[in-house]
């Protein structure tokens, strides 16, 4: 009962985190991805593109590209519009415009594995195979669905829509400037190459590592996590080729092979590579 009263009081004053229940405005743009798919990096890229004079860093990123699960309702409601809002949600019909970041699930699971060690959700000796199985069953990030559910519910509903922009983490890694050009067009921002190049530079892995060192305590995702493990890790694609056991690769490709192929990710298990294409 006391818990309920506290929650009620917070709600009354708009101090709660609205999560999926927040109000959506018709000019909102959502930056959506499954967790550990490069959302934070893209948030910095877009913040540096749209608000270059605000010097985006871990202390103000939540005011620039807010996260409804980490920002109080009162502050979320008062942000200047149009808002660009971070989200990990599976399909939500209310989102008017969506930039969806997709990433190879074989890398996503490794990133999640290391992040869960950093935030002490699992120990350092937790077996990777077991982690992958839980990941495939949707037990690791269950409020957001499985990787396949999250990606498919957006992709198959919106991929032909002018209100939807699909960006892969891998393309952002290899061609950041042209990919950011697509994002700028989608946001209706007239940005020349120079401005885009500046945003990419300001959001480089090295610079973000430096910021993390100084500001880890200021940001909800790194506060109270292990400081011997970095949040900004390798910032590379394809780590799974050396780090992920073959059986785990097969498990992921069996679950989501068709969706992976649709995103252009080549399958490593040859018996799956052409199955189901008829």
């Amino acid at each position, binding site marked *: 009962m006391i818990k309920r009263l506290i929650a009620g009081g917070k709600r009354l004053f708009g101090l709660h985190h609205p999560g999926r229940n927040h109000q959506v405005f018709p000019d909102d743009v959502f930056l959506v991805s499954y967790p550990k798919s490069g959302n934070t990096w893209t948030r910095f890229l877009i913040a540096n593109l749209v608000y270059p004079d605000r010097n985006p860093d871990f202390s103000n990123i939540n005011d620039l590209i807010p996260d409804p699960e980490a920002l109080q309702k009162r502050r979320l409601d008062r942000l200047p519009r149009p808002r660009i809002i971070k989200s990990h949600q599976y399909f939500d*019909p209310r989102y008017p415009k969506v930039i969806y970041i997709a990433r190879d699930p074989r890398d996503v699971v490794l990133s999640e594995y290391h992040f869960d060690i950093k935030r002490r959700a699992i120990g350092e000796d937790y077996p990777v195979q077991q982690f992958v199985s839980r990941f495939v069953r949707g037990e690791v990030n269950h409020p957001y669905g499985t990787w396949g559910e999250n990606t498919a*519910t957006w992709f198959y509903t919106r991929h032909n829509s002018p209100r939807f922009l699909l960006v892969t983490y891998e393309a952002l890694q290899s061609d950041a400037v042209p990919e950011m050009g697509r994002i700028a067009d989608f946001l209706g921002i007239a940005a020349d190459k120079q401005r885009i190049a500046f945003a990419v530079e300001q959001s480089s892995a090295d610079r973000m590592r430096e910021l993390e060192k100084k500001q880890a305590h200021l940001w909800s995702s790194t506060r109270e996590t292990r400081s011997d493990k970095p949040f900004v890790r390798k910032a590379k694609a394809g780590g799974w080729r050396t780090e992920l056991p073959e059986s785990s690769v097969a498990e992921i490709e069996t679950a989501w092979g068709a969706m992976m192929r649709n995103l252009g990710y080549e399958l490593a298990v040859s018996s799956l590579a052409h199955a189901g294409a008829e």
Partner: protein
Amino acid sequence: MPGRSDGMIAHLVAGTKRLLGLHRPGRSLVILPDDVFLVSFPKSGNTWTRFLLANLVHPEQAATFANIHRLIPDPSVTTKREFDRIGRPRIIKSHECFDPRYPRVIYILRDPRDVVLSQYHYHRKLKRLADDSPLEKFVARFLAGETCPHGSWGENVTTWLTSRHNDPRFLLLRYEDMVADPRRELTRVAVFLNMTPDAQRISQAVERSAADQMRKLEKAQSDQSSLTKDSRKDLSFVRAAKSGGWSSELPDSLVEQLEAKWGHIMTFLGYELATSKALSIEPEMVSFMPDKPR
């Protein structure tokens, strides 16, 4: 600032309701691991199926428009306090797009050409549309997903099929199959619910939920149901209760628009297209869902 204090009062009323459990839980409903959700896009036969299920699972009392929200509760209508008194396992009504928290789902599909007509008539009954409101305009809004808060027909169906089709926790029902053979389809539901499919009990549930029976109940109880309260009495909620009305009621040009947008999904689901304007079937969609539904 009168607007501000009005807002504050509404806020306080909502807070008090919450404290007393008189609010509708909506999306904040605490979902239990043995819950079964009865999901569909609006106007796809959800109420009929709700009656069928209520009459199957609770044969001791016939389902009516007055008790249905306690037998098969609706998180946007049934209050939190009533929810807390419902026996488990619960069967819960929903129109939501994919939600990973739903443990088991019965999903009802219906031909979108009939769904749009049913929704058009229902919105007239609810006085959201005037009698002479052009059908063309409504179809355009329907295609854009603007006629209800649950996505477009295509979005709602796609989010469930791409995530759960062929999953043992998911049962796909077509409204058309239920109209054609309700006993057979209700037997499938009973099996899905781990009930022994007793033929007599199933027949009784089908009879108690027949269109004529539901029309009688509607006449007597229209003011006791959130589905019909304050709506026009000259139009009925239980309408034709048939499939295929679109072929005489929906102009060709509108059929063409619906099929152009959703023809690939409709074909996959076994709905024959009337026009050739449908987009070619999207290969990715097919490869994601390799098996035809039954």
